[in-house]
C-alpha cells in the first residue's frame, strides 16, 4: 500500500531515468520535507480509509475517526463483501473490461492505422469527426441509447454496455494510437510492401508489434475508464445480478449509512484492484498520458 510510505523511499518499479541525480544540500532536504508533508495530507483520506476498515465499529465510535485503532479486525471486509454483493459486481466489471478493452484497442488501432499510414479519402473529415467525440458529454446520448437497448432487449445486461463503452473509448484511443503509428518510418512499411505484403500483413506483423508500448498504455487507460464508468451502467442496469462496481458501490453506500467501518471496508474493496494495477503499471500510464497529449 502506498498509504503510510510517505518517507522518501524510492520504489524499484518507478526508477526513472530523467530525474536529476540524488540532490544534496539543505535546500533539497527542506523541499523534500515540505512535499512529504503535503503528500501525507494528500493521501490522508485513503490512509484514514485503511485505518478505519481494519478496526471494529465500537472502537471507531468510542475513540473517534482520527485515533489510532485500539483493536484490529478483518470482519468489516467479510461483512462488506457479502452485503455489497462484491462477488457479483467484480465478476461483471471484470467480464466487461475483458471483452471491451481488447476489442476497443483493436478496432481503434485499425482505424488509427488507416488514418496514419494509408491513403484514405476524407481522412481529415474522419479524424475531425472522431476527435470531436472527446468533447461530447455521454449524457446527450443516453435517451436514444436507452431506447435502442430496450428495443434490442439489451437493457439490464452488461453486453448492452459494450457498444456505448466502445464508442466513447474510440476518440481517445485513436488519437493516441494514430500519433504513435505516424512515428513509424514509412521506409520499413515500403520495404515490406515491395516484398509483397498487403496492408493487413503490414498491420499485424509490423505495426502492432512495433506499437506495443502505445497499445499497452491505451489498454490500461481504457481498462481504468471502463472499470470506473458510471452513467451508462446506472441507466442500463437495474437488477443486482448485473451491476458493475461503481453502481453497486452507490447502493452499498446507502445500506451502510451508519456503519462507518463497514463502509470504509467496502470502498476499499472497490478501489484495491485499481490501486494495485496503477501502482504496478504507473510507468506506462505516466508515459502514455504525457506522450499522448503533449506530442499527439
Amino acid at each position, binding site marked *: 500500500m*502506498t498509504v503510510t510510505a*510517505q518517507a*522518501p523511499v*524510492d520504489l524499484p518499479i*518507478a526508477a526513472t531515468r530523467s530525474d536529476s541525480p540524488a*540532490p544534496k*544540500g539543505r535546500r533539497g532536504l527542506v*523541499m*523534500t520535507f*515540505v*512535499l*512529504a508533508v503535503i*503528500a501525507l495530507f*494528500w493521501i490522508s*483520506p*485513503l490512509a*484514514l480509509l485503511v485505518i478505519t476498515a481494519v478496526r471494529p465499529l465500537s472502537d471507531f465510535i468510542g475513540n473517534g475517526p*482520527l485515533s489510532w485503532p485500539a483493536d484490529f479486525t478483518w470482519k468489516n471486509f467479510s461483512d462488506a463483501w457479502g452485503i455489497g454483493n462484491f462477488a457479483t459486481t467484480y465478476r461483471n466489471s471484470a467480464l466487461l473490461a475483458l471483452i471491451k478493452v481488447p476489442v476497443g484497442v483493436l*478496432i481503434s488501432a*485499425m482505424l488509427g492505422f*488507416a488514418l*496514419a499510414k*494509408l*491513403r*484514405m479519402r476524407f481522412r*481529415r473529415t474522419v*479524424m*475531425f469527426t*472522431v476527435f*470531436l467525440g472527446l*468533447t*461530447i*458529454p455521454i*449524457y*446527450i*446520448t*443516453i*435517451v436514444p441509447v436507452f431506447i*435502442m437497448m430496450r428495443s434490442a432487449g439489451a437493457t439490464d445486461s452488461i453486453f448492452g454496455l459494450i457498444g456505448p463503452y*466502445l*464508442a466513447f473509448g*474510440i*476518440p481517445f484511443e485513436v488519437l493516441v494510437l494514430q*500519433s504513435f503509428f505516424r512515428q513509424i518510418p514509412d521506409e520499413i512499411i515500403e520495404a515490406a*510492401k515491395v516484398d509483397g505484403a*498487403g*496492408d493487413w500483413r503490414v498491420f499485424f506483423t509490423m505495426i502492432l508489434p512495433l506499437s506495443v508500448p502505445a497499445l499497452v498504455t491505451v489498454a490500461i487507460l481504457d481498462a*481504468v475508464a471502463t472499470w470506473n464508468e*458510471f*452513467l451508462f451502467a446506472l441507466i442500463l442496469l437495474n437488477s443486482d445480478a448485473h451491476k458493475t462496481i*461503481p453502481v453497486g458501490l452507490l447502493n452499498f453506500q446507502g445500506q451502510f449509512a451508519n456503519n462507518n467501518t463497514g*463502509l470504509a471496508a467496502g*470502498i476499499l474493496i472497490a478501489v484495491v484492484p*485499481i*490501486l494495485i494495477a*496503477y501502482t504496478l503499471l*504507473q510507468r506506462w500510464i*505516466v508515459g502514455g*498520458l504525457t506522450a499522448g497529449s*503533449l506530442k499527439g
Partner: protein
Amino acid sequence: MAGTVAVKPSTVKRGGRWSPWLFAIPALAVYVAFLVYPALSSLWFSLTNWDGLSATYKFVGLDNYFKLPHDPVVVSAVQNNLIWTVVTIAVPTVIGLLLAIALNGKVHGKPILRLIFYTPAVLPLVSIASIWGWLYNPQYGAINSFLRMIGLDGLAQAWLGQDSTALWAVMVPAIWLRTGFPMLLYLAALQGIPNELYEAATVDGATKWQQFWHVTMPSLRPAHYIVLALSLIDSFKVFDMIYAMTYGGPGTSTQVMGTWMYFNVFQYYQAGYGTAIAVVITLVAVAVGIPYVRSQTREAS
C-alpha cells in the same frame, strides 16, 4: 490526386481505394451507431414533448428551449456549472503546476511523491464520492472530528447538507482528483526545457522570479494549452461526482445541467425537455472543444 507525390511516398502506391476503409469501418460503425447517431437523435427528441415512456409524442418545435430560461433550476444549474468550471480548472492547474515545479527541483523520493499525487486520478469517481461523503459525515466524519480536535468546534458543520457549503464541499474531491493530470503533464514539459535557457538567464542577472515568468512560463505554453483545453472539455460535462455525492441537493444548491437533465428524463418523465438541456450543454462543450480538436487534426495531417 495522382500528382501529389511529395509527403508520403509509401502510402501513395498500394492498397486500393477501398482498402483503408476495411480498417476504418469497424471503429467508425461503432462510433456512429453508439455516439453520433444517438447524439443526433437527441436533437430530434429535444424538439418534442415526449415523456420517455409513451409510444406517441408531438413535435413542439423550439418550445423546450424557450422554457429553459424560465426554469429557475436551469438558472441556478448554469451558475453552478460556471462556478464548477472556473474552480475545477483554476485550482488543480495552479496546484499541479506548483507541484510539478517542486518535483522538478532537488527533491528526494520523486517517484513516490508523484505516485501519491496522481493516485486520486485513477480511483473510480463513485468511490471518490463515497470516500468524501464519509469524510464529510457531520457526526463521525474525519473533517468535523479534526476541527473539534484542534478546538474549532464552531466550524464543524453538515458540509454536504446545507446550501451555503454543499457546492464547495463537492468541489474539494474534484480538485483532489484532478490535480494529478496537470502535474504529470507539467512535469514532462518542464523536463523538456533546456538548462541553457536558465544558465543564460542567470548570466543576465535574472532573479528566480524573473526566470519563472520569462523562461519557465513561456516554455510551458503547449502544456498550458493542453491542460486548459482538456480541463475545459471535462469540467463542462460534470455529472457523476454531484450525482453520487449530493444528488443535486440540498434543494437545488448543487444542481448542474447534467444532473438536471437526468432528473427530468428519468424521474419527472420529461424526456423532451431533459434532452434539450443535454443539447445545450453539449453545444457549449463542443464549441469550446473545437479549437483543441482542430489543433489535433491539423498537427496530424
